[in-house]
């Protein structure tokens, strides 16, 4: 079987299965609906995994409808499957499978609508990872968005869930509109929607300002999805109110795909233009801000889901640092970090969901010393915190290592210190929560009024009885094992991963593969990998443990800065949009100013 025929399988299977689930939900029992959905996700997972293997030698180009390029001009919509994109698609399928297993049987699903929504989510995520057409990318982006808005506002009876859904929807929609404006500008400038074609045109001299504005606009929507400061406010709201299974996917792969989109757009379309250095500086600046603000807010949270959301924001900043260096090794590090962190975050959300299922609350103070009997969950929790801190053998260790080395070589060692600070704060915060909840260490903190700060938000599953259901703890355990497996794979395949990242970062390759241009593709220049690994992880881990203990026993808190930050984050949707507008305007001004 030709590998190209595998490409539409995840998309078709997902849509077909969601139709079956929606149409047949009236007659099918819940078990059948769960099984159909899980089966579809597993088939997509297998197809994406096969695509990873099949594209290692040579990327697979799939033209929708068979509309091949004519005379070097691409008219149709192309899917470009290389191991990088296929790996993220596989991650998406794995997380959706886990999320569907997690929500099987006990989660209150209305007539198959939940399952259909999750399957369409899978379709959108896979399509986003595999496409090389800019408008197609934005359409998949919108599909992911709409489905995610629906999932966030799922608990319609809860006013704050609806509010979170609206905040999410309005912010991401405005982001996608700005991206569309960028696309319109790019189309006017280059006459092409295919990213490889855009890259071919952009390589010609001239039009620098327009290209700079266009790339900032296009990246805005993607950065909103990735929850980078100042576009990040919606993520905490959405995670706080969405069903746990949805949060698993949001933190596990949706935010990461936004950053992947930035990398894909830059390397295929803009690497041969002059916008690189200015864009790199701006993105690194935003990433540093994101790491700091995310970490500080994470530490200040009592609401477990919001805490994990801010952790995702902070680590997203770390991944953006890797991508924004525009250098193959850092890119490889960022991609590995995405896989490692995504799985670890999914495991943490799984554990929090188990607490929610059992106790009906996700507030750290309310849950103090409640989960003493759930030591298995505690083990999974601690392993996931280790992954958060970037300890071996988890994938995050290898990713962080590659990014750190690249930073040292670029002379940006101070950024590495910021990343250390962020890691210590986030891992320390989550560890503090775990130690308080599972082991009951430290004095019981003051419990907030009911309904505040994640307290007594109501169970999302049927009332528990006795033991934790298998469908809840098995996915969480599987995710954390997966995070370790990513690390194990890196132990074996690190050189190849860096090579694939170098190939990803090769504009000539896109022109050659997609347009059939007679361009000599230079052998990917893979930088020397200095031997040995830096002991940063030990510092991060010890710092996190120390911080957690200090927070529990010495009541360490963040002073006035924390209050100011919390006030900024306590706005409504109009404030979020104002920040977005200011952010886009500032980014555009700085990139254009630095570039000229």
């Amino acid at each position, binding site marked *: 079987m030709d590998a190209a025929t595998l490409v539409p399988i995840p998309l078709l299977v997902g849509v077909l299965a969601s139709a079956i689930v929606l149409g047949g939900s009236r007659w099918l029992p819940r078990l059948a609906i769960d099984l159909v959905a899980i089966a579809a996700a597993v088939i997509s997972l297998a197809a994406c995994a096969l695509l990873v293997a099949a594209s290692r030698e040579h990327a697979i180009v799939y033209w929708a409808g068979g509309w091949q390029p004519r005379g070097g001009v691409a008219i149709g919509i192309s899917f470009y499957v290389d191991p990088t994109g296929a790996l993220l698609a596989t991650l998406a399928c794995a997380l959706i499978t886990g999320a569907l297993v997690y929500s099987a049987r006990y989660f209150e699903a209305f007539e198959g609508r939940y399952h259909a929504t999750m399957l369409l989510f899978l379709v959108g995520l896979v399509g986003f990872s595999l496409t090389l057409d800019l408008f197609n990318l934005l359409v998949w982006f919108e599909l992911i968005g709409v489905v995610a808005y629906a999932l966030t506002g799922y608990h319609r009876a809860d006013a704050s869930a609806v509010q979170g859904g609206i905040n999410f929807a309005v912010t991401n929609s405005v982001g996608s509109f700005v991206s569309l404006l960028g696309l319109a500008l790019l189309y006017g400038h280059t006459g092409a929607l295919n990213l490889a074609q855009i890259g071919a045109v952009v390589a010609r001299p001239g039009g620098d300002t327009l290209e700079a504005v266009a790339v900032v606009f296009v990246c805005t929507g993607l950065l909103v999805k990735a929850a980078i400061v100042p576009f990040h406010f919606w993520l*905490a709201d959405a995670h706080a109110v969405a069903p746990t299974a949805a949060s698993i996917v949001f933190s596990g792969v949706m935010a990461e795909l936004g950053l992947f989109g930035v990398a894909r757009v830059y390397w295929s379309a803009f690497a041969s233009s002059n916008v690189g250095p200015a864009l790199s500086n701006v993105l690194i600046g935003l990433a540093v801000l994101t790491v700091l603000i995310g970490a500080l807010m994470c530490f200040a949270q009592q609401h477990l889901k919001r805490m994990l959301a801010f952790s995702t924001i902070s680590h997203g900043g770390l991944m953006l640092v890797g991508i924004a260096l525009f250098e193959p090794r850092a890119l490889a590090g960022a991609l590995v970090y995405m896989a490692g962190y995504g799985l670890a975050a999914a495991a943490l959300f799984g554990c929090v969901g188990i607490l929610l299922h059992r106790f009906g609350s996700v507030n750290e103070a309310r849950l103090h010393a409640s989960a003493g009997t759930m030591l298995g969950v505690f083990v999974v929790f601690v392993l996931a915190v280790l992954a958060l801190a970037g300890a071996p053998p988890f994938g995050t260790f290898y990713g962080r290592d590659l990014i750190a080395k690249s930073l040292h070589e670029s002379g940006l060692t101070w950024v590495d210190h910021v990343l250390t600070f962020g890691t210590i704060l986030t891992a320390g915060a989550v560890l503090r929560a775990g130690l308080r909840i599972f082991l009951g260490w430290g004095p019981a903190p003051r419990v907030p009024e009911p309904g505040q700060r994640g307290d007594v938000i109501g169970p999302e599953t049927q009332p528990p009885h006795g033991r934790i259901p298998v469908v809840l703890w098995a996915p969480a355990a599987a995710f954390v094992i997966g995070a370790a497996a990513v690390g194990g794979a890196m132990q074996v395949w690190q050189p190849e991963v860096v090579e694939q990242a170098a190939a990803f970062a090769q504009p000539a390759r896109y022109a050659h593969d997609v347009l059939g241009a007679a361009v000599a593709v230079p052998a990917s220049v893979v930088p020397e990998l200095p031997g040995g690994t830096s002991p940063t992880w030990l510092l991060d881990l010890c710092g996190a443990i120390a911080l957690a203990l200090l927070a529990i026993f010495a009541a360490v808190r963040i002073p006035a800065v924390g209050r100011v930050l919390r006030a900024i984050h306590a706005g409504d*949707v109009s404030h979020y949009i104002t920040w977005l507008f200011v952010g886009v305007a500032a980014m555009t001004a700085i990139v254009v100013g630095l570039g000229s």
Partner: protein
Amino acid sequence: MTMIAYGVAFWLFLAGMYGLCTTRNYLHATACLNVVQSATYVLLLGVGYRAGARAPVFKGVPHDAPAVDPVEQALTLTDIVVGAAVTALILSLAVQAAKRKGSIDPREFRPLQG
């Protein structure tokens, strides 16, 4: 002619964004979202327009007659459909908010704090 189109797109975008930044009503926010989206439509169509050209229908017309760009029209139609879906979703969420809280003023909702 196209400068007018670009100017209109720019104005629509700013007006819609101003409305969103100062909104006190979820329905008003949805309408402003549509105004911002209209800016993208106008820009897309403005980019594709050719002065003095005909619609891109070639039945009975020589194939090298000047025509406006049909790709932009396809993009705009796709965006309109997506916009309709997003608007419907946000409106349904706003209806739910009104049911539960009795208000559609964003400030009435307690900030989601943790």
